């Protein structure tokens, strides 16, 4: 059943778009002329879609997903608003709940000065007490917030006066500002009535008792159906949001989302697959928005496996896989190869690194150097009687990674290596890679803007976090530890550059690609700022052309 359905999707899409191309587009919009008018217009309802529903209104008991963040960051405020400007330098921060901040001399105390004109939706003022209580909730064991690790370095949050709050840190760290700013500020006066021990079984209570402070308020949430946000009329920024309402309909099927964009039922959709992006780009009624993501896809080699413990072998594997060919086949212009987990659209990318070429002959030579030759003439390399044969894991739900695996499998076969793809459900996949019960796996990761490479490459993270490659290099450990003692991200740069060089030589992972995020909207929608921090970034500045 499933196989049949999957196989039928491209056929359905092709038929759909061939027919759609012959049909008239949505009526009543004069896209070009309106697109040129840059004066924002207030009012109207933007209708967009999510593939899955949100998990509630309380960030601390909801999993960290793009969908949850998309909604919660519109109805709750952070102390500061991180900006998507980290191409040339570390990200900057715009004032949000806090209008300013300052550091102590020794850089272990950070003082925020809060705006005095911010109100909760029930009229109560937002104060420093809310900030302190939010930190207590974030770090409470029974709340078990997924991202509580951000707060590990914070020893106390002190209320100086109702609009001044002080964060005390255990030690200097380059990402202190990000650590303090992580997580939206929650309403103490409304939500402290519910003991922390009951939070994990009270999702609906938080919705029913929602009190928010962002540019939008949540008018309603019908599970698996739609979320309706309305303009917060007492929001402190003059004249915004421009939209009266933003409706997020839950449309699980990607093809349905695209068909609804074409039919005009949806104004904005996100995560368009590359094949459909080309069709949308060629449609005059629609606008394709693309921007480089900071997520990247790679093959993890289990460095503890006798197959992959030699860096020469791992380099050979990288050279045996035509990464550019994979990108061309699967993404076209919407992706690029990368040489580093810090991709080339991020300020700290090491531009001196030259990618390993696609060179099967050199790969064979390196493998021979490491002792892998075909001694028994069966076409598969072997060493000490062991053939070079392994399983390469993928988890379900990602077609491009599966396709990439098949291409890599064929290319490895050409140099005498047999890789057998195996598909697991995501939970089983995670358990296998975390505990090292695998040989190779295709994975994806979004590097957070704190550029903390510890999770990927520090030996202390083996079996704990994302060092699934079980990579151990004392020099890398030392560089990561030293980088972690710097004041601010900028000071990490020399360490990050050197770590990228070592990783390039050692190839614990083979980096495949990083791609563009592809979003699309009709010409009614203006001011769209979707970027690599959020596909709904700055929704308060989006506006709709008036009808007619």
């Amino acid at each position, binding site marked *: 059943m499933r196989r049949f359905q999957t196989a039928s999707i491209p056929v359905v899409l092709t038929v*759909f778009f061939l027919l759609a191309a012959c049909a008239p587009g949505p009526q009543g919009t004069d896209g070009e002329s309106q697109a040129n008018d840059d004066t924002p217009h207030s009012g109207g309802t933007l209708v967009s879609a999510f593939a899955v529903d949100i*998990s509630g209104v309380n960030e601390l008991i909801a999993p960290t997903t793009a969908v949850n963040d998309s909604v919660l960051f519109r109805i709750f405020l952070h102390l500061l608003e991180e900006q998507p400007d980290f191409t040339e330098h570390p990200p900057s921060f715009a004032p949000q709940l806090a209008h300013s901040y300052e550091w102590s001399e020794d850089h272990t105390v950070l003082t925020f000065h809060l705006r005095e004109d911010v109100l909760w939706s029930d009229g109560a003022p937002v104060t420093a007490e809310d900030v302190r209580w939010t930190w207590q909730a974030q770090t409470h064991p029974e709340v078990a917030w997924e991202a509580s690790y951000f707060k590990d370095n914070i020893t106390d949050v002190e209320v100086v006066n109702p609009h001044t709050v002080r964060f005390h840190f255990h030690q200097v760290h380059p990402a202190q500002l990000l650590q303090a700013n992580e997580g939206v500020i929650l309403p103490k006066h409304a939500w402290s009535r519910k003991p922390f021990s009951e939070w994990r079984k009270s*999702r609906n209570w938080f919705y029913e008792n929602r009190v928010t402070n962002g540019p939008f308020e949540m008018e309603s949430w019908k*599970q698996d159906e739609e979320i309706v946000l309305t303009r917060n009329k007492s929001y402190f920024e003059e004249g915004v949001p421009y939209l009266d309402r933003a409706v997020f*309909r*839950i449309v699980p099927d990607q093809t349905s989302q695209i*068909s609804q964009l074409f039919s005009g039922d949806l104004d904005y959709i996100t995560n368009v697959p590359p094949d459909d992006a080309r069709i949308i780009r060629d449609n005059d009624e629609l606008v394709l928005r693309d921007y480089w993501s900071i997520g990247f896809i790679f093959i993890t080699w289990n460095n503890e496996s006798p197959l992959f413990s030699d860096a020469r072998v791992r380099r050979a594997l990288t050279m045996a896989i035509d990464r550019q060919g994979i990108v061309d086949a699967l993404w076209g212009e919407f992706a690029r190869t990368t040489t580093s987990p810090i991709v080339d659209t991020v300020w700290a990318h090491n531009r001196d690194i030259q990618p390993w070429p696609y060179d099967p002959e050199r790969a064979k030579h390196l493998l021979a150097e490491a002792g892998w030759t075909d001694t028994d003439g069966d076409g598969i390399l072997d060493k000490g009687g062991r053939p070079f044969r392994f399983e390469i894991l993928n988890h379900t739900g990602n077609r491009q990674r599966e396709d990439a695996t098949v291409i890599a499998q064929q290319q490895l076969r050409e140099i005498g290596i047999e890789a057998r793809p195996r598909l697991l459900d995501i939970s089983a996949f995670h358990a296998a890679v975390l505990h090292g019960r695998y040989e190779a796996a295709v994975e994806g990761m979004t590097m957070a803007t704190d550029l903390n490479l510890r999770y990927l490459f520090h030996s202390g993270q083996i079996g704990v976090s994302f060092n699934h490659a079980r990579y151990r290099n004392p020099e890398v450990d030392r560089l990561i530890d030293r980088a972690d003692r710097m004041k601010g991200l900028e000071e990490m740069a020399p360490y990050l550059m050197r770590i990228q060089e070592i990783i390039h030589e050692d190839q614990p992972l083979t980096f495949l690609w990083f791609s563009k995020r592809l979003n699309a909207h009709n010409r009614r929608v203006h001011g769209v700022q979707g970027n690599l921090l959020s596909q709904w970034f700055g929704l308060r500045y989006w506006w709709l052309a008036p009808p007619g």
Partner: protein
Amino acid sequence: MIGFVLRRVGGSLVLLFLVLTVTFFVIHLAPGDPADLLVDPRTPEENRDRLRRLWGLDRPLGEQYVRWLSAVAQGDWGTSFNYQEPVIDELAGALPNTLVLALGATLVAFGLGIPLGIVAARRHNQTADHALRVGSLLVYSLPTFWLGLMAILLFSYLLPILPASHMHSVGSDSLSAGRRFLDLLYHLTLPALILGAPLGASITRFVRNSLLELFGQDFLQTARAKGLSEVRVVWVHGLRNALVPVVQILGLQLPALLNGALVVEVVFSWPGLGRVVFNSLQARDYPMIMAATAFTGFLVVAGTLLADLVHAVADPRVRDD
């Protein structure tokens, strides 16, 4: 008859218990657990362990099973890991939407299946019969997913007359009750048609075949000989007998209808039980999966029981066995 019913109900309960026990162990023994699904790769193992403790997953499996069983015996199906609310509330919240869809689909299936079955039987071996046989086979064989997308293409895009998704229009909360109901019917049409069509196709074929068997039998010849009109012969005397297997089919199709609803709910963004179950499976939400399995198992058992009872009522030889 009562003995027959009691035997069947008793057997069904044992079967249901076995299904639930096997399901419990299979889902728990599969590699990985719900805490592995936290998407933030940096979440330390310590946080995942906190959640495992909170969900009782740190206890030995045997103990988890006994705890679950004793809670269920007291009517407590637990708290959903994914929705963080009592399982029963979540299922009960989504069930009415699925029932609306299933009811609509059943009406479509019978409303189309019975008349078309009669037409096919009356026009035996004529063009209409051939067309209906091929057509019903086609509808029955095509994946619901594909049928749904084609229906959206045709009715929502090329001839934009029906909505492609959801139960209500944007802003329907402000409508009067009557208009809101019409809005619901408007949104129900396409999904009910797509969910009901395969069942309708099988009903068409069953009605046709049953009627063809009956047409040659003596009691219908007698009815004709008495001078009854052909309409009365077919609709009253023929159809009543032909419907017995059809009702049996409905009993057996009841769970299939709800399984089909899962696909239809995804294609048409219909917020029902299928979506909740689908999300729960993806999230390894054990309490939810167990409750949903119990519910589906109950439907299978109840549907089969219904089919058996109908059969027993219609055919005394069955209950005498």
